């Protein structure tokens, strides 16, 4: 029985259920339409414009830009971090992929794309490592600084890799296989053949980039990125290694941009570093394009990049839009992006989506029905922990049960004031332990200390006997501490289901299986042989590159990027688990809705489901009933009871005294940062110091149950 079944369903749920699912073709069109449209457009453009030198050259420019903006979107759109120096990676990619690798290391030019992708990722990661532990804007300034120093570095590094001074691409790509398919009797086509070849390569790389992003956003990485964008604090507390994920997001986006740089280098056949202001200006252009197209959407970056390159190449009254804008283009771009950020932050694609939403309003959510969830999945504890719940029973036999959480002498000072002052607390496994105290007594500080959002000044925190006092929030989450937030930090622009899926982050890491390693070795061998035999690269560089590629492909990230979601069993298990938990808290009918659209009480339940998804030993509920209607409080108390029944220990911080008194096995009272009483609800209620602390409010029989 779910909570929702126990009470009359809210009117919105009725409306959802009453709506028809959209027809199958509409669902297919919505899922695959944009991708097919892109493929169709790229094919049409390549075939229709191959005789026109201006347009096919613009086409190469457009696909290169689109790849770069797809990269920028991973960082800005999905992770919420702004870089103003990505053009440096574009130039770097050109250098390494089209010049150094080919001319200095003797690698086949075709491998330049892959090398630039990986090398860009490494350079990006190095830069991100230095600043991703800080707030987002520090990254923006570091990238600005990076753009600023790239010209000096280029000068200073004259001796390195034969220099970063402007260079010509000596060995352009050998595109004979593509030329074989071209109608070279057509003189115009023959004249453009290199550009045409480049266009098809670029189009393929663009599709590959979009495909990787598509896989990424529905993988644990993509969900983690979005969680960081929506609330980094909650992401960390739900087991997302926020620091590392930000580094990964930055690396990925830098890699894609640097791969785009190879394409541009092969197009213009020379590479050079411009001055800092120009590097920043070009980087900003990517941001403008991503914003215009639609941040955080798959199609947005492509639409944005094509609008500014191809769209602006259209002639209006004898002149292209680019020509008409002339020197005013920078002004126009900047004004446009400010306007979009203020008025329509969703961009073109967001606007189209909203329009589509209006047209299909008669239909329910996404049209896909709520899946059937196996009964076993609808319990908060699907596996191991059932046994530890039994351990509580041993208490009856007199054996001392080690506490789940043991806190000794915990102290936290803000300035001179001790918000928590030498608190001892020990929480029995399987119990509901309430922590109460007047406003400002230090309850929330206590929770933040336990979960690692604050660092304690003194004292010891032990989970199952293990000292966790110095660990970051995501590590503590992985060890079994889950929490909800007083201010209800759900990830508003993710679906309800995704919110819960992120919660499984901590305990669903992939392991290195022998099968995976075998695939990697075989891949490395095959690639190495191929590069050597077919590409004519020397044995050592060929195998070095092949091993790097293979390792990258079978890494966690590589799999997330390359294997589509519907082929991944682990993804299906995570989704099933999340559906089960939604059913447990009574939200399964809202699974595909945007989390921000839920009513307040449902958001609280969603937060609890998300916390449960990490299979916690200890669940911290920070004022879960704040702002709730009495009816909703009643549902909540039922939910907490069922959580305890599943064997999960609950630490409940709450002001609703009737809820506390009704549910708790033990109540601890703190005031002015120190513990003033502890015992069963009845004992605590009788304690004079507690009554004093609450100024007698709780002695009022009207409030006490």
């Amino acid at each position, binding site marked *: 029985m779910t909570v929702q079944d126990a009470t009359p369903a809210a009117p919105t749920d009725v409306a959802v259920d009453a709506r028809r699912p959209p027809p199958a073709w509409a669902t297919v069109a919505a899922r695959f339409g944009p991708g097919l449209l892109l493929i169709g457009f790229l094919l049409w453009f390549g075939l229709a414009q191959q005789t026109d030198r201006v347009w096919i050259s613009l086409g190469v420019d457009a696909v290169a830009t689109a790849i770069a903006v797809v990269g920028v979107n991973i960082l*800005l759109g999905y992770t*919420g*971090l*702004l870089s*103003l120096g990505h053009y440096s990676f574009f130039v770097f990619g050109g250098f390494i992929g089209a010049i150094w690798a080919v001319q200095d290391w003797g690698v086949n030019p075709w491998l330049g794309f892959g090398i630039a992708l990986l090398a860009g990722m490494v350079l990006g990661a190095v830069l991100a490592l*230095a*600043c991703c*532990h*800080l*707030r*987002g*804007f*520090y990254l*923006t*300034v*570091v990238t*600005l*600084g*990076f*753009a*600023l*120093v790239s010209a*000096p*570095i280029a*000068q*200073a590094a004259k001796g390195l890799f034969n220099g970063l001074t402007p260079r010509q691409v000596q060995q352009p790509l050998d595109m004979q296989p593509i030329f074989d398919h071209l109608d070279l009797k057509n003189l115009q086509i023959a004249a453009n053949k290199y550009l045409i070849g480049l266009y098809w390569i670029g189009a393929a790389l663009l599709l590959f980039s979009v495909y990787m992003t598509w896989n990424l956003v529905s993988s644990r990485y993509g969900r983690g990125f979005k969680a960081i*964008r*929506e*609330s*980094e*604090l909650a992401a960390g507390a739900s087991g997302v290694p926020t620091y590392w994920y930000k580094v990964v997001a930055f690396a990925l986006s830098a890699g894609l941009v640097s791969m785009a740089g190879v394409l541009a280098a092969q197009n213009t056949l020379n590479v050079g570093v411009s*001055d*800092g*202001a120009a590097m*920043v*200006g070009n980087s*900003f252009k990517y*941001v403008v394009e991503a*914003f215009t197209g639609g941040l955080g959407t798959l199609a947005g970056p492509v639409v944005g990049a094509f609008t500014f390159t191809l769209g602006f190449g259209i002639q209006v009254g004898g002149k292209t839009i680019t020509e008409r804008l002339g*020197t*005013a283009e*920078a*002004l126009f*771009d*900047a*004004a446009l*992006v*400010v306007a979009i*950020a*203020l008025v329509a*932050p969703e961009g073109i694609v967001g606007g189209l989506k909203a329009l589509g939403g209006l047209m299909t309003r008669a239909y329910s959510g996404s049209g896909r029905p709520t899946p059937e969830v196996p009964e076993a999945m609808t319990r908060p504890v699907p596996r191991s922990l059932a046994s530890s719940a039994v351990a509580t029973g041993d208490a009856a036999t007199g054996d001392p049960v080690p506490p789940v959480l043991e806190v000794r002498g915990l102290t936290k000072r*803000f300035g001179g004031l001790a918000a928590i002052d030498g608190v001892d607390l020990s929480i029995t496994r399987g119990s509901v332990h309430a922590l109460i105290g007047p406003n400002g007594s230090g309850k*929330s500080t206590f929770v*933040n200390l336990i979960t690692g*959002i*604050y660092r304690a000044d003194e004292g010891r925190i032990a989970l199952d006997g293990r000292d966790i006092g110095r660990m970051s929030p995501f590590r503590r989450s992985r060890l079994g501490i889950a929490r909800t*937030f*007083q*201010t209800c930090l759900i990830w508003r622009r993710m679906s309800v289901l995704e919110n819960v899926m992120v919660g499984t982050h901590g305990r669903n890491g992939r392991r290195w299986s022998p099968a995976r390693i075998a695939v990697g070795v075989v891949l490395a061998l095959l690639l190495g042989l191929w590069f050597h035999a077919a590409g004519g690269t020397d044995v050592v560089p060929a195998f070095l590159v092949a091993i790097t590629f293979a390792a990258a492909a079978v890494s966690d990230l590589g799999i997330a990027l390359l294997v589509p979601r519907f082929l991944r069993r682990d993804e299906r298990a995570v989704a099933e688990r999340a559906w089960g938990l939604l059913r447990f808290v009574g939200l399964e009918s809202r699974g595909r809705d945007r989390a921000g659209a839920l009513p307040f009480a449902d958001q609280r339940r969603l937060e609890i489901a998300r916390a449960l998804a990490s299979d916690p030993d200890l669940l911290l509920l920070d004022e879960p009933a704040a702002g709730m209607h009495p009816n909703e409080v009643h549902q909540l108390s039922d939910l907490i009871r069922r959580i305890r029944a599943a064997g999960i220990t609950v630490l409940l911080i709450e002001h609703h005294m009737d809820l506390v008194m009704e549910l708790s096995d033990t109540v601890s009272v703190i005031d002015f940062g120190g513990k003033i009483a502890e015992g069963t609800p009845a004992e605590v209620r009788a304690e004079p110091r507690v009554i004093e602390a609450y100024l007698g409010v709780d002695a009022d029989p009207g409030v006490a149950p």
Partner: protein
Amino acid sequence: MSDVTQVVVYTLTIGSIYGLVGFGYSLIFSTTRIVNFAQGTLVLVGGYLAWDLYANAFNGNAALPIVLILVILLSALIGLLVDLIGVAPLGRFDPRTNISWLVTTFGLGIVAEELVRRYISDSSQALPGLVKSLPLFGRSRLPFGVAVSASDVLLVVVPIVVVVLLEVVQARTRLGRAFRAVAQDRQAASLMGINPTAMVMVAFALAGALAGLAGILVAPRLNVRFNISVTLGVYGFIAAVIGGLGSTRGAMIGGYLIAFVEAFTGVWNPFSSGEVYKPIAVFIIFIAVLAVRPSGLFGKKIVEKV
């Protein structure tokens, strides 16, 4: 000039400009928790406004101090516009999750820069030293045979005076107390009858005025030109971070520190041309500070409320 005096003069003059720009970042950050990415551009705009007023509007006849006052007022207005157009319409928001402000402030900076390029001048311009027209200063010669131009002296003295003045205002006046209250706890301040929105406007206007002042002061040394917007913008921020974002004095000291690093690298390094290594050295210092002590030398660690 010997190497040592060269380093000292560079540190004190350029350092105080970095500090002045960094100070602007700190003012805005402490009231809003955002970074005004238009700050660097406002320096450039101030410089060009001064040149335009001096050379074109007054045909070089007006005394520079009058121009100075006009430019500071105009710059304050432009700073305020950044708030009114780019930040205020975003409403009450959490700067950590809603990142539109990054784009609006930077975008408005570019808009301002491009407007200058279109309507004032698109090339580098020289602005006469501010003090040649003042009677007291002629060519002055300091002890130890160091030749220092009067505008250099102003470059050193004025920022320090301004910072001290603003610190006194912050500490002693009603407005200053309100400002500090908003910086410490916006919500609590608004419950005490202080209007946080107004304080944010004051911060933006002040930061704009500081940038305009920096633009004029720096002109005799660097000329008025376009590539200073990114350079001073980034260096000013680095100064603010090294000193501790949100700390007044910290920004000045951070400014001196990175100017010293620059000058030092320019003079003493094993490579042939030191100029190239200056920004690299500053960037490395910046990364190191971020990695080791992100709250800076004087900044307090910011504890986020949950």
